[in-house]
């Protein structure tokens, strides 16, 4: 009895377990439906695709952890622009891969900084600041990458889809990055400050933390991660496309929420991002293989988000 209780309380303190359980359940269903075929390949494919979701989710998670109202809606536009920047700078040449990646990250970084400046100078909620900047970024992206369909350098395309023992190399790199993000959150002054600001911005200020710097760094970080993701996606999909980021607006927020990060702020959950990303991909696979369309997938995703948030409760019910 007490053992069960302990297990239960552990579940409460580790909400990311749910997302992995969900992913496992959906995976099992998918495998059963497929008659036991492709159990392993579904996992490896899911991991490969999840790398991108997690990359964007990490940035969004840092932003959402800053507390109520903090959200980055400019990620899709950011990803689209960065993919174009990366492809143009790389220009199909293997020698310029690093340069292209750097340029894409820089583009994302600038977007993040602009977002913060809009929030700070215009004193508008992040939602609106990132929304309006996304309009502009999208146009910049279209006009910058107009008509050009530059293929990624071969080495870059190979690198992005490379697998070692069936596991995507990129996913391993993103996993390392996630671990780094976890360490940053738990063990650095910046990370602790993000968590403190998200819990109680007033108390954080009165505890001597630099709230402005923390917010600045967080939006810049989120922008940079978006930029990186854009470049990698361009390599993955064989060329830049402005719409490549479109699905990441909702997905980036969905993985954060489903992964157990508190939308009220102050509590981030890195493993949950992976669980949620895997689960969303598994659901898509399951529904595809069972002949149900993309509509059911969206419907399920939406219902899951609402169910998770309703169960987790809002800000006041947390206290």
């Amino acid at each position: 009895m007490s053992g069960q209780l302990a297990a239960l309380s552990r579940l409460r303190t580790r909400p990311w377990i749910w997302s992995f359980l969900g992913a496992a359940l959906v995976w099992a269903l998918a495998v059963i439906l497929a008659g036991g075929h492709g159990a392993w390949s579904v996992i490896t494919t899911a991991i490969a695709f999840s790398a991108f979701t997690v990359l964007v989710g990490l940035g969004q998670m840092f932003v959402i952890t800053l507390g109520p109202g903090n959200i980055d809606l400019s990620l899709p536009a950011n990803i689209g622009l960065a993919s174009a920047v990366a492809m143009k700078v790389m220009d199909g040449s293997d020698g310029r891969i690093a340069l292209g990646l750097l340029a894409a990250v820089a583009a994302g970084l600038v977007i993040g900084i602009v977002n913060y400046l809009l929030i700070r100078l215009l004193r508008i909620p992040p939602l609106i600041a990132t929304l309006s900047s996304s309009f502009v970024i999208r146009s910049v992206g279209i006009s910058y990458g107009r008509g050009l369909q530059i293929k990624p350098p071969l080495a870059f395309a190979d690198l992005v889809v490379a697998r070692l023992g069936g596991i995507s190399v990129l996913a391993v790199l993103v996993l390392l990055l996630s671990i780094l993000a976890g360490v940053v959150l738990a063990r650095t002054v910046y990370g602790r400050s993000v968590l403190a600001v998200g819990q109680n911005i007033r108390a954080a200020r009165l505890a001597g933390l630099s709230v402005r710097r923390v917010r600045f760094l967080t939006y810049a970080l989120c922008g940079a991660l978006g930029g990186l993701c854009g470049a990698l996606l361009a390599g993955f999909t064989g060329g830049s496309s402005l719409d490549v980021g479109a699905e990441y607006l909702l997905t980036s927020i969905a993985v954060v929420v489903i992964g157990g990060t508190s939308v009220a702020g102050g509590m981030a959950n890195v493993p949950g991002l992976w669980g949620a990303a895997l689960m969303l991909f598994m659901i898509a696979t399951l529904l595809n293989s069972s002949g149900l369309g993309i509509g059911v997938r969206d419907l399920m995703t939406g219902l899951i988000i609402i169910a998770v948030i309703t169960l987790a409760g809002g800000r006041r019910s947390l206290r």
Partner: protein
Amino acid sequence: MDREIIQLNAVTKSFGAVQALRGVDLSIQPGQALGLVGHNGAGKSTLMHVLTGTIAPTTGSIASGGGARPDYGVAIAKRLGIRCVFQELSLCPNLTVAENTRIMHPRLRGFGWRRRAGRLITRQLDTMFPDHGIRSDTVISDLSIGRRQMVEIARAFTTTDDPLRLVILDEPTSSLDPSTSRQLLAFTRRFVADGGATILISHLLHEILDYCDRIVVMRDGRVVADEGTAAFDRAKLIVTMGGAAEGHAAEAPVSAATVAAEGPARVRYRPKGETGGTELTAQAGEIIGLAGLAGHGQSDCLVEVFDAAGGRPGRVSVQGPVALVAGDRQTDGIFPLWSIADNITVRSLGSLTQGPLISPQRADALAESWKQRIGIRTPDIHNNILSLSGGNQQKALFARALGSDAEIILMDDPMRGVDIGTKLDVYGLIREEAARGRTFLWYTTEMDELEHCHRIYIFRNGRIVAALPRAELTEERVIHSSFQEAVA
């Protein structure tokens, strides 16, 4: 005599360990203007909330019109015609004066409601404040604080179909100019003459003495005096509030109080908009008390000093790192998702790093050592902060400030709702740390705590009105300065 509007019998109210009301008997008759006075924490505002039904008493009974009201609450209070003007504004800032009137009266609807609401509130304003200059179609946020207060008060006196028998006014004149205040008080006399009743809470004793028929003095959650106004004068009110008649011990608990601190001032502070007047100064090793009624500029002083740290000296100059101990733990202090250790170390993170990373060993060592020194009662400092009692949470906040590199510690009434054991632990520590050269700025609403200070500054209406060395501190002097009249 008329039946009473409402009667409280032996009402008590406790919030956890804190007893806010310890058996209050109070009866309010129609045609009576009651004045309610008491120092901070005497139980006035709790009593108001009991009367308006927003707080249910722990024990005791409430009766009205001769009958008991066992399920007394907001709805019954409304039906009995009891209204309250709270100190915090309860107008919607985005609505017009007329619309705010409509929010209070469900009856104001249908065609032409806006005109009727406007007429209702305008007529009331005309009656109470003849030259108010407020249009009923003005949005509240466009009004000055004083005019908002006028609207708020006038709205409480408007009637559609509900009765109106008792209006409670909590510091109604705090943002009114003297002539408007007089208009308001004169109106309450007329209201009372017509058979209504008022309860007036004010820190301006002349208002109480001039406009009330009967005065109730509260102290420590009890009614200590309840007599006709004729029985009181200013001096007697002050004595009754302070309980000086009990022969309060004036012995200094601090021998250090006699030691004059040396050296340059670490903190210099003058309230905003003051050029002359008393300047607050604090040197190394000093404990400085900030006294006066709650909300008269003490917390603002602390926040300004906090923000000025590290900046250029100006009206406020601060030499040395500062740390603040919040009194309102939930909104200003605690990080509710974190452990006790995390809450203690957050102020010192920069000094706990090894390379780019915070060292958990050093963080734990810091938290553990302060847990021992300040006596936080917990089996494990890695438990959530909310697992602690209020007093121990407060100790953790003290540990956060004292464990940091701060030389100046600001304390924002930190002992609110803290048990006596915790207090004694912390008092000792403050003295110890002051002896080591730290400076304390200590805003407190508790008289006893001022006795630990070397020097006391008394705030009233955002100004420093008195500076008392420890030797001259008496409760009477503090109350006298806190309640002093506006200069005539």
